[in-house]
């Protein structure tokens, strides 16, 4: 391992800002995508359930 300390690791040889922005942005995009899908799935299922419970014509978009 080439890192002497935690601060050395986060500094990334002076490129910390660039390296961590890249990795954090990638992680945020992936987490956001998974959460958005979760909500989309919940919404789709809720709509289908409403359609089944309340008849087919009014609630169907």
């Amino acid at each position: 391992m080439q890192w002497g300390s935690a601060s050395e690791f986060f500094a990334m040889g002076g490129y910390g800002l660039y390296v961590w922005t890249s990795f954090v942005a990638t992680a945020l995009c992936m987490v956001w995508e998974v959460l958005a899908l979760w909500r989309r799935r919940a919404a789709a299922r809720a709509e289908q359930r409403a359609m089944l419970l309340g008849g087919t014509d009014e609630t169907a978009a």
Partner: protein
Amino acid sequence: MSTGINWLKYSSPQAFYPLAGRLIPWFACVAVALMGIGLYLGFFVAPTDFQQGDSYRIIFVHVPAAWMSMFLYVVMAVWAGIGLGLNARLSFMMAQAIAPTGAMFTFLALLTGAMWGKPTWGAWWVWDARLTSELILLFQYAGVMLLRTSIDDLRRADRSSAVFALVGVVNVPIIYFSVQWWNTLHQGASVSMSTGSKMAATMLMAMLIMTMAFWLYSIAVILSRARCIVVERESQPVWEEKPAVIQTAAEAR
């Protein structure tokens, strides 16, 4: 069929839905595990590059994201083509499910590329063949998605966005070979099918493991988006929680 398995069975949304539901957790778990291994190798095992210092570590997300952006476009175009040829609705749904993830990876490839370009070239962005063609790929993904949402009739939306996706596939080889065809600022391929790799073994290993992780992540996310699309578009049967929901429905009436 000689294998005894009716593969066409899985081309129907009804069969696809539960199958995908069973597969998603496996792809997701392996993706997370590989990401952990890849990040560990990338940050703690791979040495500092003698030319680029530690800024090179951006490639562990940049290269997989860029590869996925191109690869997913081709897969989307193939599904679009199958959809147009066989008029199979699940194929169109798959193409529809791939576009947002592909666009996300294209955006990430451009963003992480800028993060690498600034310290290495001294510029966030240059109008270089590789960068410009990748930016066009982002617009193509946006075009495929916008075309779909702008047409109300589902069948026409499917076909129009499929044709758009298919025509745009010519850009993928342009992106891939741009570093050979033009004198670009972007460095040439570090991994090539003809000459092998120019990287240290641990760097290459970290990059390939991250690529596998992104691949499996994409499969998991795309399958689950395709499941959402099936629920949204196929209003007739309820495939999930069938007995329970129907029970409540019956009681409510």
